[in-house]
């Protein structure tokens, strides 16, 4: 398919139904982030015929209003948990109030659906970010929470302004990250 075709809700629903019939396990809405597209997706669902679970793959920075719309619709959330401190979120991603928003949405996605968390370990952000994220998950969401811990960080466009992000994760940091995971008590980590 070419970049950016306006398909009708009905056409998208047919594509999803067909994918389900050939054995896909879910419908996975991505964007960028799917948050601005929630109204569109809700209309697509009105037209679907098959029983296809909804997999919502997001950065987790959505509003309470969006969260209420997703309840009763999303079967499985995958939330990209990036920062353990507002300072780092502000500096690297330019968003405010990150910790409060993410922890609120992680909790409500767990209570109103099921949850998978993805953590891409950032170089130089083990103590400020990884540590608080792991302890929040273990304490508030439970040690059985499924977490995909990833070491594939590659330097990106913000790297110019954030010197620590100009390199990949070192081997020593990855080993330390794994040690932090085992100390956290989390029992369901893919790494």
């Amino acid at each position, binding site marked *: 398919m070419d970049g950016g075709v306006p398909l009708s809700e009905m056409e998208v629903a047919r594509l999803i139904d067909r994918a389900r019939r050939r054995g896909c*396990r*879910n419908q996975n809405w991505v964007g960028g982030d799917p*948050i601005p597209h929630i109204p569109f997706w809700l209309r697509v669902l009105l037209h679907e015929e098959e029983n296809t679970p909804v997999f919502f793959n997001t950065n987790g920075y959505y509003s309470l209003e969006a969260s209420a719309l997703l309840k009763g619709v999303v079967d499985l959330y995958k939330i990209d948990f990036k920062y353990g401190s507002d300072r780092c979120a502000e500096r690297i991603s330019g968003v405010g109030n990150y910790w409060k928003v993410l922890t609120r949405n992680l909790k409500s996605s767990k209570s109103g659906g099921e949850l998978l968390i993805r953590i891409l370990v950032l170089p130089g952000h083990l103590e400020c970010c990884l540590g608080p994220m792991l302890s929040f998950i273990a304490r508030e969401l439970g040690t059985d929470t499924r977490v995909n811990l990833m070491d594939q960080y590659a330097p990106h466009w913000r790297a110019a302004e954030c010197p620590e992000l100009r390199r990949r994760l070192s081997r020593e940091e990855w080993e330390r990250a794994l040690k932090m995971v085992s100390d956290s008590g989390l029992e*369901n980590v893919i790494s």
Partner: protein
Amino acid sequence: MWRLLRPDAVDALDDPRVLSAMPRYARVAKGTLPARFLISRSISADWDPQGSLEELWQVHNRSLSEAESLMRRIDSGGMDSRELNREPRSLLHLKARIGEALMESCVLCERRCGKNRLNGELGLCRVGRETKIHSCFDHMGEEPEVVPSFTVCGS
């Protein structure tokens, strides 16, 4: 085909670690329980088209608790999900209606930029009124329990 690409995904829906974290999803993916949206589509919701956004939310929240108790009944085996009907004015329709209303002064993400996307204004996210489909494919690169995942990229 995907079984060759991702042999680790074949039995993932029976993996005890997957089942402990997402038991319901595993059953929906296998087709033995209905997806949540099918339940929301079976709950009738009676809203006043002239009503305020606040009134729409009130009807929404009432219907959502009905959907939740219906889901519990289905999941515990108390009701056959083949009996789920398709309401012409359902909770899912109401969600779509509210979703559209929220675009008028958009607050879907926490940037809450308030742009009127219904008029075609672009938000801070660069999305306006329309969702275009950028690509779709069977995604093999995700966690084993979600593979293969039919991925639709909106833009």
